[in-house]
């Protein structure tokens, strides 16, 4: 398994775990109509710190590969994955806006929908990277 694929597995797993934790602990988000910026900020800071730890561990355990830039196939896989993940994000944001427009529910629900779309799109990016790196292009 290449360094890029290991990285995608690590980051994808991180997004699933932190995304599920966020969903399980977001009952506070529905308790009122305020956008809980600080709670969301805590979540993103935790994701950034864990991402740095994962990348550092991968870099130490794969020193040779980590130093090299992505090659042409990996760059293409990353670019295509980003393209599809962008579509996932767009669909998520449009759905969130539609739900907000049709059912209302307050600005916090729209905010949470967009944040959830971001998390799903980020996960999709890593999942697509693994798919393209494994299955070919």
């Amino acid at each position: 398994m290449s360094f890029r694929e290991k990285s995608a597995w690590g980051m994808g797993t991180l997004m699933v775990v932190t995304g599920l934790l966020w969903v399980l602990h977001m009952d506070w988000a529905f308790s009122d109509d305020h956008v809980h910026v600080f709670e969301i900020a805590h979540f993103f800071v935790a994701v950034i710190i864990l991402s740095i730890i994962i990348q550092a561990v991968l870099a130490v355990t794969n020193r040779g590969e980590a130093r090299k830039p992505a090659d042409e196939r990996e760059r293409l896989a990353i670019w295509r994955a980003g393209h599809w993940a962008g579509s996932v994000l767009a669909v998520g944001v449009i759905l969130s806006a539609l739900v907000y427009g049709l059912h209302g529910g307050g600005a916090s629900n729209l905010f949470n929908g967009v944040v959830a779309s971001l998390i799903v799109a980020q996960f999709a990016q890593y999942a697509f990277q693994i798919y393209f790196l494994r299955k070919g292009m």
Partner: protein
Amino acid sequence: MGKAPPITNRVKQLREEHDGMSQQALADAIGVTRQTVIAIEQGKYSPSLESAFRISRVFGVGVEDVFGWEG
């Protein structure tokens, strides 16, 4: 997505003919990862024109001796 391109190649055969050159050695020679050489040999990825020329130069043959069009 993931459909194999209609381009055939003799990379594995040429590698074996060159004293059993390893995939890693070929990857280092052309500046890609070993996984990319594996993907090329399995027909899962068609290399760029630059990499195709690099591969043919490593083996001392023309590009058309390494790559072909299916059918």
